[in-house]
């Protein structure tokens, strides 16, 4: 129902490859890069989202809500803009 949201942001980032936003729920991938300020990178890294880590997308809330991912068997939820700055090499379901 809200697929158009996902597609639109996926298009915006196509040149860079996938992000946590453009991944589909259930897909996994390896984090390639985390873009953003020092605090955001440090904090995401502390929660397990840093280059080289394998992440699995659990869900994305409707209406531009947060994205939940599984990393190291724990769950992390982050706002949509932050999720869109985590670049991922998608490796299938």
């Amino acid at each position, binding site marked *: 129902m809200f697929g158009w949201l996902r597609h639109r942001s996926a298009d915006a980032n196509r040149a860079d490859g996938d992000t946590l936003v453009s991944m589909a*729920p259930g897909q996994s991938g390896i984090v390639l890069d985390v873009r953003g300020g020092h*605090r*955001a990178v*440090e*904090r*995401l*890294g*502390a*929660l*397990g989202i*840093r280059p080289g880590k394998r992440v699995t997308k*659990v*869900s*994305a*809330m*409707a*209406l*531009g*809500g*947060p994205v*939940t991912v599984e990393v*190291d*068997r*724990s*769950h*992390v*939820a*982050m*706002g*949509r*803009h*932050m999720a869109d700055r985590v670049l991922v090499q998608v490796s299938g379901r």
Partner: protein
Amino acid sequence: MRILLMGNPNVGKSVVFSRLTGVRVISSNYPGTTVGYSEGRMKVVDEVAQVIDVPGTYTLDPTCEAEEVALHMLQMGDVVINVVDATSLERNLFLTLQLLEKDIPVVVALNLWDDTKHCGITIDVERLRTELGGVPVVPTVAVSGQGIKELVEAIACARGGQHPARSRDERWAAVGRITDAVQTITHRHHTWSERLSDATVKPASGAVIALGVLAASLWVIRLIGESLISYVLDPLYQAFWLPLVERLSISLGGQGVLHALLVGRLVDGAVHPVESFGLLTSGVYVPFAMVLPYIVGFYLVLGLLEDIGYLPRLAVLLDSGMHRLGLHGYAIIPTLLGLGCNVPAVMATRILESRRERFIAATLVAVAIPCASLQAVIIGLVGDFGLEYVVLVYATLLCVWLVLGIILHRVTGGFSPELLIEIPRYRLPVVKAVLSKLWGRVRGFLMEALPIFFVSVLAVNLLYAAGAFGVLARTAAPIMTKLLGLPAESVVAIVVGFLRKDVALGLLAPLSLTAQQFVVASVMLAMTFPCVATFAVLVKELGWRDTAKSTATMLASALVVGAILNAVL
């Protein structure tokens, strides 16, 4: 000796703390409750040591206020007990290595040790000890007390790991190497709690579950509240307390100043538990037999939801909606707390990062979130006319919360940061921990609310005797009658509501208002000044200027909404 308890948020640090010191502290699943800190004392060998529960931190390169506090406290400690979540070793060891790079003795507590089995994780404790440079490593299960004795014994053997200073990337590489060396993970299927966990953060199933949780919570709170009232507290009052008061009333001759203060007015020649408004009648019946039962029910349910770990999921679910109000999903926690008492709710707005968010959240709580005392008034008075009127009051307040939030979001400067939270695993609540937290909160209500309650009842009776209320009613009459359609005397209840909302109950009761008037009066009571205790924490948390803005907002919105309700009904 000063011992610091340090670790990531949600690793059971506060439980370890209360095990070590025997001091009861509130420990819950959501990060943020321990900003600020607790301290206690414990015995190490023959020495009494000071123990400090440092706010949860992921890193010593601070990324938020709590981590700055943690870093600052590190400089004051002699020994660090690093509490580690054994089921999330990799993430936790980052902080451990940072601590070992500092020149301070460390003991590592591998907490949640029992959960490693359920998760299919095996950790070679001896190997971990060697890898960390020989610091003691003790597996613990803080909730059951397992390993705590060994942990205390290990404090004497605490030592620095003499690790070289590393860059962030080097440290993560070292963490990865150590984790691979000491931990084996056997693959296993998702447990029911993980499936449930996924379902609560998916849009459709999450919404259904949230509605179910809400409905179940309301049902349980009402069940507990009403059962306590009709089977325990009201019978106790009728059987034991009332006869004493009646005897007192007769021996005082049924009139006079002392009678007015202690027993109050007689209604149709009899002592009335609510309307008499004496210290020994309404002053006892209202707080104990009307408000306390709902306080108990509310805090029991809230404590369970906290300890199960549901609240962070609710925050994720509501995040995009809350952004329309200039808040992120985490602001739902102060909001929920506000349904119990606005005082801890306003204090809990500290978990929000920006000043703007704290202002919006605190103002919305003070204006549109009715506390348990106020809800007891609403249910007790408006409920007599039928459920639809109670629903009307709640629906109005919900609309106010939404509309005011949208307006504040538009007009308040500054920005609101995005949500970023760890969602802890579901845990079965520990009965003892839930009950001790409940007792702490109920005791808080009794200690803080009751004195103000008694003083308010006393003050109202004295002012009434002095004729001050007649003047007040005449002055406010145009607003009350023309704008709000209420009798002039009800201004007294609304003003007294500034002291305590539940006191106002006894003042509204004898006015024989219609259902519509009760709806307007309830909404006005909810939206105008918060009680004096809430006002005090508002000033403390927001400062005078923002409190003044907040107060202006509530007065303006209360009059507008009251006038609209009066016109529509």
